[in-house]
């Protein structure tokens, strides 16, 4: 605080600290106008004003206002018709739709519509993609380069070319369609909404959640039928997200079949179009046979179960009131309140359960046709439904079996495993058979003298010597004549003298198993097979063993 001020303060006011408080500013009263305000921002940096610097508004005006036909002001602010009306659509499930004006008046978004009308005919020039991150996009919130790209993108979209886009641009386009019914005919608008939905829903999945509702509102307000043919590929998604599923059901004709189709599509929580086996390749079979099987089963169930008779006649009506274009940018005089009276398909939990079971049984059959192994479990109390649905698929499978009788061609590499068919020549076959004995000799080595230690000649890669195991045994120092031990042990076994055999093994410091193994190895070379099993001489070889032991002089004749 400076001294001058301090001098002016009297003693009584010594304790007053009002002078220390910042002076109060008088604020202007709040304006209720929520229109967007444009602010000119002077260039940053140099204190010298650059002649080339242009304000944002000037730049926007340079870009936007070039070659745009100016609409008469009288038209721009012309109030829209707010009259209420009621009508009955073609959909037999919907009794009536009443469209009334919105209760609470508001003026925000009016600037958007003005700009939309102003820029409606603006064509863009080619430019690179510019990202945009606006949840409620408006022209006034876009940067000049974003605006530039939007017009270029919109020009292409109007010609059916879908360039790289951002959520903000798509929403802006949709808001134009919603808020400009005078400039865009409702029939065209519906096509434009559907096209933009199908074009970008893969990348921007939120379009599914929003456009399910906005398309419904648009059709209700403009008395249009839902574009089911165009939306058929994504009906499964629509039935998942739409709050008013009945609007999208195909129920435009009298009779039970239409009602059954509605039941199939929205009469349960089981959305078969979301099956992992429902692919572009299998969509046809799913669509065809789901409907066929359900109608087949429903037709037979309708005989005894009135719930499968046309529910429209049962008078189970419901009423819903929905605000149009919820969460969308929508000006007041476009916004409506829509009241729908309709027949709710399947309010019975039991009926919904039956519909779900029929769908699952049908899908099981279709999976079987497609060669897939996984199946839904069907509760046993619904076996009668299974029987009905399986009846439908019997001729389907039969026709499939006939069409797939032709086996697929063998791969090219299978030719490597074929032999030429040359016919039978006995002389040639005989020479093959005789020459094969040489291989048999190599493998068996049973036709040569197989006395241990004898080289039987080079008849093959490995037949020139007896196993080293036997040779290593024979190479022991003198005094350990294993062949004598084996012969004595073999004699014991031939006589059934098990204890004698054990004694010989013990005296030779060998385990009984090892002694048996040694004997078998020797006898394998002699008779071509082992001769001892479970410490007994095999019956087939008793004669051979006896002769062998007699030859060795161990067994007296």
């Amino acid at each position, binding site marked *: 605080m400076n001294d001058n001020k301090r001098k002016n303060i009297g003693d009584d006011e010594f304790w007053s600290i009002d002078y220390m408080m910042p002076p109060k500013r008088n604020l202007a009263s709040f304006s209720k106008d929520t229109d967007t305000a444009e602010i000119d921002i002077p260039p940053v940096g140099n204190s010298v004003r650059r002649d080339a610097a242009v304000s944002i508004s000037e730049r926007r005006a340079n870009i936007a206002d070039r070659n745009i036909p100016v609409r008469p002001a009288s038209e721009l602010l012309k109030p829209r018709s707010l009259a209420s009306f009621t009508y009955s659509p073609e959909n037999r499930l919907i009794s009536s739709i009443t469209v009334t004006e919105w209760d609470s008046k508001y003026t925000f978004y009016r600037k958007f519509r003005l700009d939309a009308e102003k820029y409606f005919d603006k064509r863009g020039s080619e430019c690179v993609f510019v990202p945009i991150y606006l949840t409620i996009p408006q022209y006034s919130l876009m940067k000049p380069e974003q605006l530039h790209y939007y017009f270029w993108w919109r020009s292409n979209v109007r010609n059916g070319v879908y360039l790289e886009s951002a959520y903000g641009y798509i929403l802006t386009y949709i808001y134009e369609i919603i808020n400009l019914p005078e400039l865009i005919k409702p029939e065209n608008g519906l096509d434009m909404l559907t096209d933009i939905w199908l074009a970008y829903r893969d990348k921007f999945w939120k379009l599914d959640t929003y456009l399910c509702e906005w398309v419904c509102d648009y059709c209700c307000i403009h008395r249009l039928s839902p574009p089911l043919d165009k939306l058929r590929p994504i009906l499964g998604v629509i039935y998942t997200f739409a709050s008013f599923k009945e609007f999208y059901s195909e129920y435009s004709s009298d009779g039970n079949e239409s009602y059954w189709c509605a039941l199939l599509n929205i009469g349960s929580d089981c959305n078969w179009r979301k099956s992992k086996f429902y692919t572009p390749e299998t969509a046809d079979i799913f669509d065809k046979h789901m409907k066929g099987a359900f109608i087949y089963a429903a037709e037979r169930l309708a005989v005894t179960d009135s719930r499968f008779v046309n529910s429209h006649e049962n008078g189970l009506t419901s009423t819903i009131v929905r605000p149009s274009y919820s969460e969308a940018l929508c000006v007041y005089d476009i916004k409506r309140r829509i009241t729908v009276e309709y027949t709710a398909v399947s309010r019975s939990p039991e009926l919904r359960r039956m519909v779900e079971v029929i769908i699952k049984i049908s899908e099981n059959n279709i999976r079987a046709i497609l060669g897939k192994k996984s199946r839904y479990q069907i509760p046993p109390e619904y076996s009668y439904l299974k029987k009905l649905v399986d009846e439908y698929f019997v001729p389907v499978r039969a026709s*499939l079996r006939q069409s797939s009788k032709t086996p697929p061609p063998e791969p090219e590499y*299978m030719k490597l495993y*074929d*032999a030429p068919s040359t016919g039978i020549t006995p002389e040639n076959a005989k020479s093959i058979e005789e020459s094969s004995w040489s291989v048999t000799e190599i493998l068996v080595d049973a036709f040569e003298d197989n006395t241990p230690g004898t080289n039987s000649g080079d008849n093959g890669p490995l037949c020139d010597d007896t196993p*080293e195991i036997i040779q290593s045994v024979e190479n022991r120092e003198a005094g350990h004549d294993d062949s004598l031990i084996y012969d004595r042990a073999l004699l014991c076994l031939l006589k059934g003298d098990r204890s004698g055999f054990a004694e010989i093994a013990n005296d030779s410091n*060998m385990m009984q198993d090892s002694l048996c*193994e040694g004997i078998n190895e020797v006898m394998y070379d002699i008779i071509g*097979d*082992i001769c001892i099993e479970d410490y007994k001489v095999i019956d087939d070889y008793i004669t051979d063993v006896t002769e062998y032991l007699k030859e060795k002089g161990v067994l007296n004749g």
Partner: protein
Amino acid sequence: MGDEIKVPRRILTSLINSLSAGVVPRVGTPYIAIGRNDEINALLEDLKTVDEGGCSMRFIIGRYGSGKSFLIQLIRSYALEQGFLTADCDLSPERRICGAKGTGIATYRELIKNLSSKSSPEGGAIQTVIARWLSRLQSDAAASGLVPGSDGFNAKVRSEIFEVAKELEGQIGGFDFASVISSYYTASLSDNEELKSACIRWLRGEYTTKTEARSLLPVGDIINDENWFDYLKLIAVFSKKIDYRGFIVFIDECVNLYKISNRISRENNYEKLLSMFNDSLGGRSPGLGLVLGGTPQFLEDTRRGLFSYEALRSRLQDGQFAASGYKNLSGPVIRLRRLSDDELFALVSRVTKLYSSCYSWEARVNTSEMTSFLQLCLTRAGADTMITPREILRDYMTVLDILRQNDDATVEKIIGSGNVLSLSHEPSTEVCGSTESPDDSVPQFDPADIDI
């Protein structure tokens, strides 16, 4: 030489019974080895390589019924006779090279269960092999003058064991393996059956937790899904140390790997095969020979077969000059083509002789009758893709049985009246439960074919 057939009686009986039943004979296969001379010689060369301390790996690929299992049994029998250790198993959904739920270790257990030696050709030789080796060490110690049971005797035997164990310790898992062998010797000295049993259990891979194994044995690890092949390599080294010629492993029905539906699981198995291949052909598994049998789809299918795995494809595929029309069996793949008509006739002729020898009965079949029978088999519908030597021999044995039991029967009457069993056009299963089928492809489906 061909007229003087001296086949051991038991082998001959078993052979004839197996052929009549349509199963691959376990014994006696050399006597009906016809038409595979080149393939047999190639495999015998592999045995020689293994005997010399090298290693080998072969894929035997052929259609179902073309003789893969027969060839495997043939080489197995020969290897046993020549002093090799062998082990064989068939893969199945429960037995793979690697996988969850112990499917890899299941293969190892089956192999060790079927471990065979010359004196134990039917398997279960693990205990016999170790016992025999220890017995030999004891005999050598006794031969050097030491008194059995003395301290010096035990020390001498132990030192021999440690000598071998020391060489094994350099291998992966060698230390534990050597410890188990030593423990087995200790147990055999003290007649400790429980310890011996624990050692055998460990070698068979039957311990599922290290804790359980450690409680009984001085080991730090167990044989499991990840390391079982390392222990096969170890057994191969051990077999060479204890004077066997080597260790030959036969794995058949590899088509079960092709049938694994999960791609990740299938590729894990292929990766393990690649590792085995690299070890074998890189010389890192001395004394080990591997023979694997599979179908053409298992090898050559570029979507699911071995050729779908690029590393294996580049190693197993034929070179650019392979299509020149010349036979080349030096590569890792042996392709078994079908037996030609003449080879089938030679086979039938051979079986006739063996049958006569087995029953000591002169077969009343001449060349023209054999020709007629074979032509009847080969001209049936579907014979070009479905007929196999197994089915031909099974039917022929039926003809011989009828001739033997009915003196008034002739071949012409039997095959002319249609008494011969009709050829099966369904894939027949092998004795080990083959899951092969001639058509593994998923049926092609076109929605446009459906009409209500």
